[in-house]
């Protein structure tokens, strides 16, 4: 039976999550050099288009179709066949709405990876990589964790809104991609953001959209929805302050970039836990995700010298891993899901750990293979000359800003 209150909320939540992709575009766009701003915005906008289509054509079917062997969803829903207005079992919203809500997650996940290869990616290779990655990595992963019959779901893995499915996969894939692609030419590892205000706008709207991302994952309106909403805000707040304090102590000045990075880290960390933990736990989860992100972004990246340009692994990967494990510690059935370690159920932490490892290994190997293939067939990196001129002009023949009118 369709519950129209749930439906109204889920329509709004779907729109909120959709907003996050163009917003992410600006978050990333502000952080790169002027000559590459359009390329970054373009990548997000075109992912929105391509994956929206891929999803209704076959992505949704692979991810959420009737289970085959716990591994994949099959082809029953290809072209939205059998996807009607009638709710799926256990849900109260039209099936097509559930499909659309999930679409927005499928869209934003590859958009996150963009941060690893900005300023040097070849557009054609990028498109092919994105299509293959979504189909071969995201869709199966979504099925394993969220599909009914998915093997990780059957084991009891908890991932409320996609800490594992979205952030760990994107983060790890980003790391592998960055390692294989190589650093930006000259002056790469730390050029100033050309428009930090863009990035702040981005972060603000990401925080806003994340209410749809997390609270919407309740798939309706109820106590769990409220909990997820509150947890999301609380974690983001704790994370922002944590990063600011760390920045102040270690880098001597509180930075705006630090605060907005912290915000994202906190939102990522609470994503798998949002519907399962208490608000007080959210403070710990947000702060912890932020701290871990800070360490990786500040020390680990420099030590190992990889150019994960916009810290996709440092923020999404690490905070996602932390959040997934924290879920195993702090989850309580009184809010939702299952009990975690703190409530006398150590097994949950073990299942979380397993799902984290699976996500890491699957994403890493999958990205490696897809990268090699696409690089061979189309190529993934632009020439040095093109990189120096900038992607906006060389890949799109456009400039973001005019100097004189």
């Amino acid at each position, binding site marked *: 039976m369709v519950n129209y209150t749930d439906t109204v909320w889920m329509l709004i939540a779907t729109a909120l999550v959709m907003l996050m992709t163009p917003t992410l575009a600006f978050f990333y766009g502000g952080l790169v050099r002027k000559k590459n701003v359009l390329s970054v915005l373009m990548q997000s906008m075109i992912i929105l288009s391509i994956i929206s289509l891929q999803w209704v054509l076959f992505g949704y079917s692979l991810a959420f179709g009737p289970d085959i062997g716990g591994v994949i969803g099959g082809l029953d829903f290809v072209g939205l066949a059998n996807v009607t207005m009638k709710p799926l079992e256990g849900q109260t919203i039209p099936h097509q709405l559930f499909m659309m809500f999930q679409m927005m997650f499928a869209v934003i996940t590859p958009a996150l990876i963009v941060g690893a290869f900005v300023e040097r990616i070849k557009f054609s290779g990028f498109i092919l990589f994105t299509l293959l990655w979504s189909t071969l990595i995201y869709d199966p992963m979504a099925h394993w964790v969220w599909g009914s019959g998915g093997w990780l779901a059957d084991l009891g893995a908890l991932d409320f809104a996609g800490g594992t499915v979205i952030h760990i996969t994107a983060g790890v894939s980003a790391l592998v991609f960055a390692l294989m692609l190589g650093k930006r030419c000259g002056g790469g*590892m730390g050029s100033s953001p050309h428009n930090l205000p863009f990035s702040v706008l981005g972060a603000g709207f990401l925080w806003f959209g994340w209410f749809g991302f997390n609270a919407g994952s309740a798939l309706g309106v109820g106590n769990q929805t409220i909990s997820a909403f509150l947890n999301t805000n609380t974690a983001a707040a704790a994370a922002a302050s944590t990063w600011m304090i760390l*920045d102040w102590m*270690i*880098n001597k000045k509180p930075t705006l*970039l630090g605060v907005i990075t912290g915000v994202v880290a906190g939102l990522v960390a609470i994503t798998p836990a949002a519907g399962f933990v208490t608000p007080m736990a959210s403070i710990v989860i947000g702060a912890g995700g932020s701290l871990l992100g800070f360490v990786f*972004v*500040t020390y680990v990246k*420099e030590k190992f010298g990889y150019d994960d340009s916009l810290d996709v692994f440092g923020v999404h990967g690490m905070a996602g891993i932390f959040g997934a494990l924290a879920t195993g510690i702090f989850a309580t059935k009184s809010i939702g899901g299952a009990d975690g370690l703190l409530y006398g159920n150590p097994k949950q932490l073990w299942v979380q750990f397993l799902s984290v490892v699976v996500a890491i290994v699957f994403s890493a190997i999958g990205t490696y293979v897809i990268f090699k293939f696409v690089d061979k067939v189309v190529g993934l990196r632009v020439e040095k000359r093109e990189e120096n001129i900038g992607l906006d002009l060389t890949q799109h023949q456009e400039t973001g800003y005019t100097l004189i009118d």
Partner: protein
Amino acid sequence: MKYVIAVIRPHKLEDVKAELEKAGVHLMTVVDAVGCGRQKGVTEIYRGVKEVDNLLRKIKIEVAVNEEYLEPTIEAITKGAYEGNIGDGKIFVMGLEDCVRIRTGERGKPAIG
């Protein structure tokens, strides 16, 4: 005829303009610039990565003057831009070959003022 180029701190522009007005110099071109001299540079920090010796924001004022206005112009700019610290700026004086007023076609001394 001389061409005067002055590099000053951005926030001193209004003071310099006021002093130039007092000296009877009303015509100028102002450009945004980055640069450094003995001031070394500024350090910015983004996600923990320090960028040292970044060029500082400056303002470049360019004025074409007739001989008799040269010293008053230099004095005015100096007075307006002075703070007493490294980074106050510099004034460069160059000889000016010719000057043309586009609207009337006047050349030389009359065209400058």
